[in-house]
């Protein structure tokens, strides 16, 4: 299956930028003395989401950074480590690095690989909990200028081209004042004297770029550098950017490659030469060398390069705008009101004489058309097929399954199910977690599967459908299923209130507890126990529910039910007694008025209707809702055949009123869930009508059948 992942890149970029901004915000507000556990969790989740997303899209460089970031954060939030100020700094730096990486993917701007590597190293140091490790790795504040004696042998293989040595010298000169004591000739030893505020490690960094550590000898002379030389430090400061870790030496090697060899001598001796150098035209051509990290459009100096980065970051996409979901909601509500008002006006207008008020009627007709169009347009802002989310997963499944040496086949069903754009955006993270969890914990390795008598290839099914007022998304695998004993054991270990008498459903719900994970190994994919509680939180945030069905040895099915809060519904209005109900059109197969003899009773109570050779169970809506009907017998009213819960059922109502497009309003926001009803809507006359949930009606009907 080939899917153009690039269509989702934009979503990932936007999401990640949001996560990064949120992370930075939280970090900035974090008090290192007494960090708020929720904040730490939130930061962790942001990092985790970025990791998940970048993993999905194959931006492995970002996954790597977030993984180490996450490891440290995880230890912090578990209280294994005490938060220190320097950690916050490092986190912020990591955030910056991620931003440049993101920019790199988004705008093709250059990424400073060395900064990336360094931040990773620092994070690893911090996470390893070596006292003072962080301090050592962190750049020390520049101490007073020191004098170093540097000696190395100019390896002919490396220094075949004099430009290389020149570059090296230039880089060292950037640290302070360099004096060449001896050497520089081919194959000979080089002795240098450097007066600089830099650490020995910084010098080694530069040299290590060309030389093996054992070839270098550095001695620190104790005498203070001449006062005059320190004044030249500002020139050095020119290349540091307050926003970034003060590690200019890291960047300088790349920079140095663009040196014009002719100028080296002068520059090596004079700090001012640096400033001069910036005015030189792009020296790529002159340098005659290429560096792997060199950008195609190199700028002469570090300053120039940063300016490009900034330009890239602020570059805005004008083809789409990001609007908050609330604004769209408001728009939809207003349009809904407009439709209702229009319907009311139309009703009033229909009462006047069309001959005299012809223009009014024409106007009304036009208003109706315009309102419908407007409603359609506004609605279409939000509705998207779920394939937008599903089509991310073949890649995830392939990568993750490959990583674990598992064979997995992904099946997707119902990709055309439309749901709200807001929901699409929010559901992708939880779904990714669930899919990854299924791959990691659910589906077993081919060997285990064969041993259990199953096909070596596991099947992961993603299914979406609309059931009544809900969008139902299932993530099902045919893996090992949940292990009841292990979950209970882990819950006890965690001190959760559990006992052996709990029902399976209750036990399964335990996996949604924060920090709960039964995985023995924390992997890049799952096992940190972050997924499930976030999944639940996110889904509940959308007003949905998560249900788990699991059978050990046979697999796990996780069902997400999302309310259709904003979706518009094509419905048939039916009346029973004085009440009007809306029946979703998608469930209706046909409507008919049966002859009296086609309605039969079974065992004196349950009734069936004979429709073209089929016997369908008959449910009287007035019985379920305890309403006094106008039509007491099916042959006096209408039977609406609905297809729900996998079978056809005849729903007995008084009459059909008409077909409408209705805006679904939640009953639960101010009231509670009502059995058999998925929501409510407002009719043209301003009255509330309840929207029926056919699937629930069928279930109620089945359970009530024996009762009178």
């Amino acid at each position: 299956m080939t899917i153009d992942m690039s269509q989702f890149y934009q979503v990932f970029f936007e999401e990640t930028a949001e996560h990064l901004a949120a992370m930075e915000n939280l970090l900035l507000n974090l008090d290192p003395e007494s960090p708020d556990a929720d904040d730490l969790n939130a930061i962790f989740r942001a990092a985790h989401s970025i990791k998940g997303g970048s993993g999905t899209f194959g931006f492995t460089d970002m996954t790597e950074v977030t993984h180490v970031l996450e490891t440290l954060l995880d230890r912090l939030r578990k209280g294994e480590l005490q938060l220190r100020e320097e950690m916050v700094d490092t986190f912020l730096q990591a955030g910056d690095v991620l931003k440049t990486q993101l920019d790199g993917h988004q705008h093709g701007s250059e990424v400073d690989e060395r900064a990336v590597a360094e931040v990773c190293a620092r994070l690893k140091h911090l996470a390893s909990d070596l006292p003072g490790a962080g301090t050592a790795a962190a750049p020390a504040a520049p101490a007073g200028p020191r004098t170093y004696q540097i000696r190395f042998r100019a390896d002919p293989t490396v220094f075949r081209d004099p430009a290389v040595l020149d570059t090296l010298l230039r880089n060292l000169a950037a640290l302070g004042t360099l004096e060449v004591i001896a050497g520089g000739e081919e194959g000979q030893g080089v002795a240098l004297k450097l007066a600089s505020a830099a650490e020995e490690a910084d010098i080694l960094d530069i040299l290590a770029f060309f030389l093996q550590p054992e070839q270098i000898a550095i001695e620190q002379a104790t005498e203070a550098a001449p006062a005059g030389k320190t004044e030249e430090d500002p020139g050095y400061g020119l290349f540091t950017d307050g926003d970034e870790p003060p590690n200019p030496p890291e960047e300088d090697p790349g920079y140095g490659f663009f040196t014009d060899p002719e100028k080296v001598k002068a520059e090596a001796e004079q700090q001012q030469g640096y400033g001069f150098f910036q005015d030189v035209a792009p020296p790529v051509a002159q340098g005659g060398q290429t560096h792997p990290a060199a950008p195609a459009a190199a700028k002469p100096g570090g300053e120039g390069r940063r300016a490009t980065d900034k330009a890239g970051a602020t570059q805005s996409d004008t083809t789409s705008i990001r609007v908050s979901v609330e604004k769209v909601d408001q728009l939809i509500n207003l349009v809904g009101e407009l439709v209702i008002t229009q319907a009311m006006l139309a009703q009033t207008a229909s009462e006047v004489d069309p001959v005299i008020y012809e223009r009014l009627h024409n106007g009304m007709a036009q208003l109706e058309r315009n309102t419908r169009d407007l409603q359609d347009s506004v609605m279409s802002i939000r509705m998207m097929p779920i394939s937008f989310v599903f089509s991310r997963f073949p890649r995830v499944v392939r990568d993750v399954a490959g990583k674990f040496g598992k064979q997995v086949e992904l099946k997707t069903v119902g990709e055309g199910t439309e749901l709200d754009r807001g929901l699409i955006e929010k559901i992708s993270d939880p779904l990714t977690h669930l899919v990854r969890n299924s791959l990691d914990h659910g589906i077993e390795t081919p060997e285990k599967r064969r041993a259990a008598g199953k096909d070596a290839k596991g099947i992961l099914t993603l299914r979406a459908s609309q059931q009544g007022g809900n969008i139902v998304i299932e993530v099902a695998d045919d893996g090992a299923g949940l292990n009841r004993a292990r979950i209970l054991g882990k819950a006890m270990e965690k001190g959760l209130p559990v006992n052996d008498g709990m029902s399976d459903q209750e036990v399964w719900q335990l996996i949604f507890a924060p920090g709960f994970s039964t995985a023995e190994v924390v992997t890049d994919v799952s096992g940190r126990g972050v997924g499930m509680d976030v999944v639940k939180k996110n889904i509940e945030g959308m007003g949905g529910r998560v249900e788990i069905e699991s059978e050990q040895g046979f697999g796990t099915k996780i069902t997400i039910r999302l309310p259709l809060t904003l979706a518009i519904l094509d419905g048939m209005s039916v009346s029973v007694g004085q009440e009007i109900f809306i029946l979703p059109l998608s469930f209706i197969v046909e409507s008919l008025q049966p002859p009296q003899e086609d309605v039969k009773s079974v065992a004196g109570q349950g009734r069936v209707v004979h429709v073209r050779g089929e016997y369908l169970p008959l449910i009287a809506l007035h019985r379920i809702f305890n309403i006094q009907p106008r039509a007491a017998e099916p042959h006096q009213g209408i039977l609406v055949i609905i297809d729900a819960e996998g079978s056809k059922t005849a729903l007995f109502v008084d009459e059909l009123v008409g077909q409408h497009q209705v805006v679904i309003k939640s009953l639960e926001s101010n009231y509670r869930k009502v059995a058999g009803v998925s929501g409510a809507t407002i009719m043209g006359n301003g009255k509330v009508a309840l929207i029926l949930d056919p699937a629930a009606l069928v279930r109620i009907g089945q359970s009530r059948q024996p009762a009178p």
Partner: protein
Amino acid sequence: MTQASPDTTMNGVPAAGNEFLTFTLGREEYGIDILKVQEIRGYDAVTGIANAPPFIKGVINLRGIIVPIVDMRIKFNLGKAEYDPFTVVIILNIAERVVGMVVDGVSDVITLSPEQVRAAPEFGAALDTRYILGLGTVDRRMIILVDIERLMTSRDMELVDAGPE
């Protein structure tokens, strides 16, 4: 809700300066925190809800939102539950929900000082004393001050889901 709490004294009796909307149910007079009241309107176009308790009359469309209507007269078995153009519905805004409450009549808005409020004794009222903040006295009238938020979100009223199914 939150606006009122800082003014509430230790024993839950509202402090001075609290304003109450008073309404009647049968021959009893009740008072609720005015800040919980969104508006007062007539009773019309209620859509019944199947299998709901009798005191839940149904839902109405209040400018685009679906609002449940509770008839307090039926709930507490006070007064006659008749619906005519003079039937009054108090729309409450409690616990981030909007709920309508049918009462016999709305009297006025009064301000009670702490001296005018007595703790409610244990007595066999239609209303559980848990939901009574105190008894207010104005002239010769006794006003039962109700913690309407607590009452409406209680399980007794069946307005909120008891919990996950």
